[in-house]
């Protein structure tokens, strides 16, 4: 199978779906770029090139550059979705949700319920998450915990190119509003990705690695850090079971619970801040539904309760590291032995 980067996988997913369904549009800031300028159209194709080339094939009517106006972008997408289009809107950085969240959580996500089931809002919001680029406090956050908390919204957090394509196609075909979180440091990460379209159902976790000693749940970039830790640990004979939920809403509770039933030990790795987060969400789930099986405290390896610092040295300490993950696993593994 051909190797493709996450960028390529996402671009391919968008192009293939847009070919299939003329009601799909892409809308956002510089999703093409060069509008109203003397230079090239498609000058950017998205600030990180994910939508590059789409305007060439699908034209300005379906690949829509906008002013800097996130509330109008999200509202346009929500309003278009509820009236018959399937918009894929871009929120350049997820950190910007604060200027437009009403259109997402009070409007798009609640239409169906408020209107007694009459509305359908097939909306996809693509957005960038993650620290590690020295982009500082307002361009490095991972607010998927907040997105997950919203009833009516679905939240996707892919960790590799294969999942990225299948989950994005699923998101586009899905009849509910979906927020799709792309980690800014992973766009060039390559994996085998089929050329033909395929979907990955929401709410089905990926067991990245089997093991019977400790269950580790990790998301996005942390999946790869957890794998690094796993290799280290297995040298010492500690075999972790690594679970990538892939979607946080819906969450595949069964796969996590079944694994903990077996291992009795759980570590959750999350690049987001620690309060009221997906890490606490999964810990609470297990402390309720798999309590009897638990042999050790549930440890969370997360960012600290601080904004993201600019200085690379500080940022490196901010982000969970393979070392910290391994240390937490060792602690949990050793507990009560």
């Amino acid at each position, binding site marked *: 199978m051909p190797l493709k980067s996450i960028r390529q996988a996402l671009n391919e997913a968008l192009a293939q779906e847009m070919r299939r369904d003329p009601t799909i549009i892409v809308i956002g800031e510089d999703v093409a770029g060069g509008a109203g300028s003397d230079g090239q159209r498609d000058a950017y194709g998205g600030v990180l090139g994910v939508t590059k080339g789409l305007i060439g094939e699908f034209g300005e009517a*379906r690949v829509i550059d906008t002013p800097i106006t996130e509330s*109008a972008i999200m509202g346009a997408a929500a309003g278009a979705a509820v009236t018959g289009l399937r918009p894929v809107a871009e929120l350049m950085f997820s950190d910007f949700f604060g200027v437009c969240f009403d259109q997402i959580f009070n409007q798009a996500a609640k239409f169906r*319920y408020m*209107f007694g089931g009459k509305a359908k809002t097939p909306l996809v919001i693509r957005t960038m998450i993650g620290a590690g680029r020295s982009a500082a406090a307002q361009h490095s956050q991972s607010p998927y915990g907040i997105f997950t908390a919203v009833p009516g919204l679905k939240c996707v957090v892919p960790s590799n190119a294969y999942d990225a394509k299948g989950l994005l196609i699923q998101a586009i075909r899905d009849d509910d509003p979906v927020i799709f979180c792309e980690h800014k440091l992973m766009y060039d990460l390559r994996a085998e990705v089929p050329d033909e379209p395929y979907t990955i159902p929401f709410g089905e976790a990926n067991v990245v690695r089997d093991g019977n000693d400790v269950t580790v749940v990790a998301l996005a970039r942390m999946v790869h850090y957890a794998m690094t830790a796993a290799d280290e640990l297995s040298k010492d004979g500690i075999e972790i079971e690594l679970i990538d939920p892939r979607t946080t809403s819906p969450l595949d509770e069964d796969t996590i619970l079944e694994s903990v039933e077996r291992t009795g030990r759980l570590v959750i790795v999350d690049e987001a801040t620690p309060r009221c987060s997906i890490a606490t969400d999964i810990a609470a789930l297990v402390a309720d539904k798999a309590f009897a099986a638990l042999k050790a405290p549930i440890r969370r390896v997360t960012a600290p309760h601080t904004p993201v610092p600019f200085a690379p040295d500080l940022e490196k300490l901010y982000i969970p590291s393979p070392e910290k993950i391994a240390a937490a696993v060792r602690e949990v593994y050793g507990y009560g032995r």
Partner: protein
Amino acid sequence: MPMQLNRDDLIRAYRSMATIRRFEERVQEEFSKGGIPGFVHLYAGEEASAVGVCQHLGPKDYIASTHRGHGHSIAKGCDVGGMMKELFAKQGGLCGGKGGSMHIADLDQGMLGANGIVGGGPPLVVGAALTAKTLGNGHVAVCFSGDGASNQGTTFEALNMAVVLKLPAIFVFENNQYGEGTGFSYHCGSRDIAGRAAGFGLPAVKVNGDNFFEVHEAAHEAIERARSGGGPSAIEVDTCRFYGHHSGDAQLYRGKDEVKNLREQRDCLKHFRTRVSEAALLEADALDAVDAEVAALVDRAIVDARAAESPDASELLTHVYVSY
């Protein structure tokens, strides 16, 4: 302009306005009696705005409304019985009792919903207009907003976006001089909604909302422009509300006799009656017949709403997602 309207049009317009008036008066009564839960914001006094605009719209044209959404819903063709059941939080309500007055909606009638968020509607109308433009179906989307909502950032963003994308969108600002208890002359720095909107690069006019025909004419022009690819417009409707901000509002911010004078001097239904009689377009008893007809309709709706069942407990968990 009444000339453009034949007898049926006039009757239709009057019926719509009279239905709204009667609906709101009866809702006020029922609310006071305690039959209607939550908050209700009544539209009485502003009927000519909703009807003057919606007369030009079909069910496939869209409108987005505000917290004060009963009038827009009726003008857009929503079923009065279903509306009343919704306000009473009953089965058979337009939203199955899950939305209520502040979220009343009927997508089949192109009514995208009342909105609990001031400024929530304008971005959505950009989207509905974008659908119309993308599908090239000649439909338009109308956004009703209040004077207070005209200051909200989302509203300004929607205006600019509609101009940039040359969308078939019409922004109707119903200036009833108040945002809750705060006066227009205070909250709107420009003291001119249409003028401020015009600065965004779209045609914007001010009309007298007491005069159905003025609204109707301005809306005709803006909507035709939109349908024919001419892009968005804004209309500021000078109007007034006969009740409080919400039912139960003590209205201490009102001047002495303010409401009394409004009802006497600025009643758009009275104005309509006078106009059509003077122009000998409709006879008084034709209009009286409509009044009687809508009174019966609304009263019946209340009887039915009272009698209807509350939603089944299972409804708590339905309609969160299409699939999950």
